[in-house]
């Protein structure tokens, strides 16, 4: 059916068109811009919902044309793409609401929202790309679209962070391009396919394939912030809160992690990756990153920086999960793609609320903030407990599934990593919660402003409440159909059965 062919393109175009419209809107056109933004986000949400339903029932969504001799531009929706597309469609809607409130009265809003929508378009493209070449197109587009957001404030510090971001990501992109071009020269244009391509690869190619795998992971690992390629992430914290929220929860780090999942599952194939001996070292690297990120988070005094190192750690759960050779572990890793997004965006929304409403940036300024901002603090608490892995929240589902998966595939050491990391998570989150709820306020806040009838502006208040509620719901309702867990099981089922 022709409509199905165009659906992926529509999903992409809603944000792209919104971006172009917003760029030409005048800076003062506040209402119109907000309407375009939210309208496009809602339309996209609708399109993605239809596609999720369709993919579940086996509908084929795909569009391709020849871009260069021997290379196709392919957009295609499979179960894994819908996971990422769904995540970005939902969270983007909420982040847009948040950003509208956050940026009230600040300059350069046309530019901000234009590039913001361009970012969504890029993540949609990343989600729906049907081969590595198309994936790369959108992966680089994401780099370019996020740069203006990172340097949005235009201060020296922001520009420095932007520079680090660009150096890391463009170098990563160059390495990735080399790997993709090499692979193309070796075996031609490979579409993403459940089960991968190299199950019966010629042994003569094994050496090159291993080398290419290393290059691919190195290129993707920059955005996924795998140690030692994570340096840009904490620096990029100078960006406005909605940007940090999106960098951490949906767009950039997830694009890297998602790419690694694609390479392992849909290019190499999980069995071939294991046969080539690629999963074990990657698992060790991911495990190290998990512990390293948590350990570094402990010593951060700036709230957003602590959250940033927490992200470094949490994203590697996804990678560790898919390296556990077996369906259960893989489910745990994949589901964290969504769970981490929901939890981390909650925490960043809350951090933004504290900063905008009370002027709080450092952790030691947070004493007693729970009394002044109970709603935000409640959401923060839910997010933090979710990260620690307390049942029945989202993070618990992840850790539980991964733990069972590790036992099933005889990688018992992973349990140790999970436990240790949970202890570290508790060690850097619980003191914050203690300050929030159990300490006396210090008198005056660094920079307080009264903002509407709620504890803060309604635009800022509701998004974290909603994502906190989701954190609870995806945990409690994990076994319902279309929950992240059920969907991850569907992805894994399809990957292992082919």
């Amino acid at each position, binding site marked *: 059916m022709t409509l199905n062919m165009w659906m992926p393109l529509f999903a992409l175009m809603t944000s792209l068109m919104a971006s172009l419209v917003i*760029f030409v809107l005048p800076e003062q056109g506040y209402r119109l811009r907000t309407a375009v933004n939210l309208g496009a986000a809602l339309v996209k949400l609708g399109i993605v919902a239809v596609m999720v339903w369709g993919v579940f029932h086996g509908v084929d969504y795909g569009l391709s*044309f*020849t*871009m*260069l*001799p*021997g*290379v196709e*531009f392919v957009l295609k929706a499979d179960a894994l793409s819908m996971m990422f597309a769904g995540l970005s469609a939902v969270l983007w809607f909420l982040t847009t609401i948040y950003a509208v409130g956050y940026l009230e009265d600040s*300059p*350069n809003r*046309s*530019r901000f929202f234009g590039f913001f929508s361009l970012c969504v378009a890029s993540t949609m493209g990343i989600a729906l790309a049907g081969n590595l070449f198309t994936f*790369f*197109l959108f992966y*680089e*587009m994401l*780099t*370019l679209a996020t*740069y*203006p957001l990172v*340097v949005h*404030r*235009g*201060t*020296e510090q922001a*520009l420095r962070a*932007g*520079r680090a971001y*660009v150096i890391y990501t*463009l*170098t990563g*992109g*160059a*390495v990735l*391009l*080399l790997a993709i*071009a*090499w692979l*193309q*020269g070796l075996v031609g244009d490979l579409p993403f396919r459940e089960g991968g391509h190299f199950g019966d690869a010629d042994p003569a190619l094994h050496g090159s394939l291993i080398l290419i795998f290393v290059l691919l992971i190195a290129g993707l690992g920059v955005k996924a912030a795998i140690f030692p390629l994570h340096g840009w992430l904490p620096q990029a914290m100078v960006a406005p809160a909605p940007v940090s929220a999106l960098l951490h929860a949906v767009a950039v780090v997830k694009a890297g992690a998602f790419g690694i999942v694609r390479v392992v599952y849909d290019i190499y194939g999980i069995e071939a990756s294991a046969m080539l001996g690629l999963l074990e070292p990657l698992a060790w690297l991911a495990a190290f990153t998990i512990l390293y990120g948590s350990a570094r988070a402990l010593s951060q005094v700036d709230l957003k920086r602590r959250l940033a190192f927490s992200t470094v750690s949490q994203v590697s759960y996804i990678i560790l999960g898919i390296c556990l050779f077996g369906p259960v572990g893989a489910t745990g890793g994949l589901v964290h793609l969504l769970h981490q997004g929901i939890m981390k965006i909650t925490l960043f929304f809350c951090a933004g609320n504290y900063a905008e409403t009370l002027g709080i940036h450092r952790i030691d300024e947070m004493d007693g903030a729970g009394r002044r901002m109970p709603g935000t603090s409640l959401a923060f608490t839910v997010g933090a407990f979710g990260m620690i892995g307390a049942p029945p929240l989202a993070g618990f589902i992840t850790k539980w599934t991964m733990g069972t998966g590790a036992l099933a595939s005889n990688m018992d050491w992973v349990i140790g990593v999970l436990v240790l990391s949970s202890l570290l998570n508790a060690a850097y989150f619980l003191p914050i919660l203690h300050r929030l709820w159990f300490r006396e306020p210090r008198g005056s806040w660094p920079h307080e402003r009264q903002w509407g009838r709620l504890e803060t502006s309604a635009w800022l208040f509701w998004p974290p409440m909603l994502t906190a509620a989701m954190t609870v719901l995806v945990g409690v309702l994990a076994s319902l159909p279309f929950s992240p867990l059920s969907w991850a099981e569907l992805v894994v089922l399809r990957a292992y059965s082919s």
Partner: protein
Amino acid sequence: MTLWLMAGLLFTPLAWAVLTLLTDFSRGRLVSWAGILVQVLVSLGLWLAVARDGGFYYGLGGWDAPLGIELRVDGLAVTFVLLTAVVAGACGLHAGAYIDPDKPWHRYFWPLFWFLWSGLNAVWLGGDLFNLYVGLELISLSAVGLVALGGQAGALRASLRYLLAALLGSLAYLLGVALIYGQFGTLSIAGVATWLSDHPVPSGSGMALALMIAGLALKTALFPLHRWLPPAHGIAKSPVSALLSALVVKASFYIAARLWLELGQPIGSLAAAQLIGLLGSAAVVWGSWLACRQQRLKQVVAYSSVAQIGYLFLLFPLTFSVSETVSLQAQQGMTLQVISHALAKAAMFLAAGNLILSVGSNRVDALAGVSRFLPFSLFSFGLAGVSLMSLPPSGGFAAKWLLLQASLGSGQWWWVLVLLAGGLLSAAYIFRIYRASFLESSGTDQFFHPSRSLEVIPLILAMLALGLGLASDQVLTVMALPFEGEGAP
């Protein structure tokens, strides 16, 4: 029909050159806009005709070679003719609004512009070495004149330097042509290639080819012969810089490439091919490095041209003694690089011109606050930058992808490093500009705002450069069309 199109294509620029010589700048502008319209339509018509029916030889005035001038109208040539129409047309429109009509010497802009255009068409279509020489001289002399239009002492110095380099290059080329004529008794490139296919290579023909390519490399500003380019391109008026960087340097490169593709395999040597590739790589690295260190905006863009030209010369090693597939990939990559660089660099010079007009200074660090108050001009500059950094989905990316494939396919992995490093280095100088313009200065708008028409033109060119990547396959199909007289005459 095609005959009329050919006549229109060749006749309009010359006629308009004479017409505009008789009037002042403002009236010349009106006349020229009409001429640009004609020229764009004719080029488009010719391109469509060739895309439908394939290429052909065209004897000027009905005279065939060797008596008359014979033009080679193939897919590649008409693509470049169309590219010239788009870029030169855009520069002409921009110049009409950008150049101050009150300075008396500016009236010479239009005649020089039209002579330049006719020279470019002559080079794209030329089939024999001497006609190519004539076209080349027409281009060089009008380009030197255009640089000198700047009027300051600096512009005169730069144009004089440019003139000397161009003359020296022509001289070397002409010497090579004379040697070829002495050895083969023909000036047609295809004729020489045919003769070589069933005769041994005469001694001394290597020398002839080397002289011609060296002369052309000097005119293309290949490292280390690039020193004349940045001052000339940097100091000229922005629409002129755009013309020079986008089209003029490509003309001499185009001749060198045609020579190499027809005669390189029989006459050239592996060492020569690798040496030229090495010089191209050095240009990429050195040009980018110097671009990073420039304090003036247009100098950054000019040094970027030195670097971008370097990529083109990778054609030489990637088409020598390699498989058909690799050679084709390299040629396609080179063509896309020529087109995308022409569009992107023209866009970038025009946008830089607008920025300089608005800011009132040509220094990079004067750009603070531009992103807030002049987003439009910066956006065009930024989009052009995406293509120069060869990031997807631009034409620059498509070119890089093909060149990467050609390097990997022929086992010449060292060019891979150059291509990847070159992309990162260009990002270094382009992000430096972004960085300068994202800095928030004082909160008030003290900039001059140029008219919308000035701002729209570079945006359109930049969009074309960016979109080229997505349409690469279609463009490459036209260039690979069958050619009726393959191998003849």
